[in-house]
């Protein structure tokens, strides 16, 4: 019995750890999409920011500087996206894809001499005996600083859309940018800020990958997490609470292979690796069956370019 509780405790701990980058990406992308902008560049941004954070941390010797560098690069990447997709009104899907391809290439290029270098990453924060609470102790109190930051950011985004006027503005711009412009809301500025927030969040997620989750740099280390984060937003029907639930659900899915192997089943790791991707498809199918629901919650102007009338 003792063994089981221990295992469950570790499983929940790992679930939150694995779900954290997904949570960060999905929160950022959700804010971005709420303003009507679809940024498919998450995968590329994630990699760029992971490598930037890693290099900055390694050369400066400070993890904090690494995180800040990752966020900064994330915002820069999102500005690049914003310039082309918001100012120049290019197709958002194509621009997002370009950002991904560009990010994969640039990160591999920049990071080529850093592959495999060791770095001491974020450690769990010591909270005394709290981690000994059965089952949930390790999950809630045995995490590192970035995980706690993700909790705070989740609450922040929740508050933003539930209570703040700025949250209303973002929703309004995403639903009907022309009406928003007509009553004098700053459409372009709002969209830029939302996209930049998405970039910053992807930056944190990237930093988490290369500085906390697996403190190192490997080409393509995000392994589709950016895309899963995008799917999560759809899964969550653009609702903050569901993003949290979905992130940890997918986190759990991604570590099931460890569980299965831990339980002594002999299944190829390659086949088990398929699980999170397969789960993403299954969940997407399940959700898209209800188009009414998607229409109800999806920002009405999502992905459509906006031409100012002045």
């Amino acid at each position: 019995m003792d063994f089981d509780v221990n295992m469950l405790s570790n499983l929940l701990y790992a679930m939150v750890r694995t779900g954290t980058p997904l949570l960060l990406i999905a929160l950022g992308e959700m804010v971005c999409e709420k303003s009507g902008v679809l940024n498919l560049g998450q995968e590329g941004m994630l990699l760029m920011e992971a490598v930037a954070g890693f290099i900055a941390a390694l050369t400066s010797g400070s993890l904090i500087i690494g995180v800040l560098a990752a966020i900064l690069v994330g915002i820069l990447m999102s500005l690049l996206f914003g310039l082309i997709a918001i100012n120049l009104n290019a197709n958002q899907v194509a621009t997002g894809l370009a950002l991904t391809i560009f990010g994969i290439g640039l990160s591999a290029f920049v990071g080529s001499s850093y592959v495999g270098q060791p770095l001491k990453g974020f450690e769990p924060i010591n909270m005394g005996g709290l981690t000994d609470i059965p089952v949930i102790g390790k999950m809630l109190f045995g995490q590192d600083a970035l995980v706690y930051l993700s909790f705070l950011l989740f609450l922040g985004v929740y508050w933003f859309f539930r209570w703040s006027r700025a949250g209303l503005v973002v929703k309004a711009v995403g639903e009907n940018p022309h009406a928003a412009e007509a009553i004098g809301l700053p459409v372009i500025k709002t969209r830029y800020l939302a996209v930049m927030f998405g970039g910053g969040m992807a930056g944190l997620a990237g930093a988490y990958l290369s500085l906390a989750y697996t403190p190192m740099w490997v080409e393509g280390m995000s392994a589709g997490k950016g895309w899963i984060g995008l799917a999560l937003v759809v899964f969550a029907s653009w609702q903050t609470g569901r993003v949290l639930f979905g992130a940890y659900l997918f986190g759990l899915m991604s570590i099931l292979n460890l569980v299965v192997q831990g339980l002594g089943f002999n299944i190829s790791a390659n086949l088990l690796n398929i699980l999170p991707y397969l789960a993403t498809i299954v969940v997407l199918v399940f959700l898209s069956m209800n188009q009414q629901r998607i229409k109800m919650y999806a920002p009405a102007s999502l992905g459509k370019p906006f031409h100012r009338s002045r």
Partner: protein
Amino acid sequence: MIKLQPRREPSELMVYISPILAGILTLMTGAILFAVLGYNSFTALYTFLVAPIQDSQGISELLVKASPILMCAIGLAVAYRANVWNIGAEGQLLMGALVGSAVALQFPDSESKSTLILVLISGVLAGMAWAGIAAFLKTKFNTNEILTTIMLNYIALNLLQYAVHGPLKDPDGYSFPESAPFSAGATLPTLLEDGRVHIGFALAVIAVLIIWFLVSKSFLGFQMKVMGMDERAAKFAGYPEKKLTWLVLLISGGLAGLAGVCEVTGPIGQLVPNVSPGYGYAAIIVAFLGRLHPVGILIASLLMALIYLGGELAQIKLGTPAALTLLFQGMLLFYLLACDVLIRYQLIKVPHSSTQAQGAN
């Protein structure tokens, strides 16, 4: 001060100038990048873009590399014209290679070319089936094809890994994760006496011709174009949206599958873990760079193949990182999107005094 002003009608000319401009900008950035990294920019660009194709051997290699890219890109172009975002050429290619290999390995001693035809067909069908999953989910449940095709890419990659480490691994191949080499009957014949150009390139060119007819002459192609430009108009006119979605995904999947099976039966000759250095993703760039037009794509795929070859050569000769190829690809696509702005907007000089913003009515 220079600013952008919307044109009254999109510029036809800019449609063709924009990719050239993007290419020039990529070259210029490349030159600066090389200089910053401490290489001689001229030598580096020369190594990248001219040296690989100086002799017939080089040209032949170029065509070998261009074949899979061309097949994938021409298929993607059909899908993108219909506004169906198949990002899954990579996965469809891998599945073509995987299933084609599985079939080829059933005939270890075959000399007969009928084996080859069977292998090719199975590769094409595998690519179609892989894309068909996305088509089924999109038409039946409205599931976003971008996300499903991407996920299917990762799944295909893992299946391939599983196959070369497990069921399809060569029992006599020591511990390498590779299949046994294919029999003569399951190998693509070469097109010319010397060089490695195989009939896959000819198949790719035939595909280009057929697709050209489809998109520019047939009513089916017109319907796809309408669906891509204006979904509501297609609905209004009663075009069979679901059938068209199936069709474009099957075409692009089948061609990507063909690309995959041609790689394993042609230049590689067996199934290996890294069948594709991202051909399926490069094809996305090629499709855009070629303006979704068959002729444009033919040219763009040769350019993309050159970037691959140049990247390899520069890696050997100058010691540049392998990722340079990926970087050039990404830059090219980004510049293209930026330059495409000139199709709808024009640059005009405005005197400083007048800062009034202009816009469409």
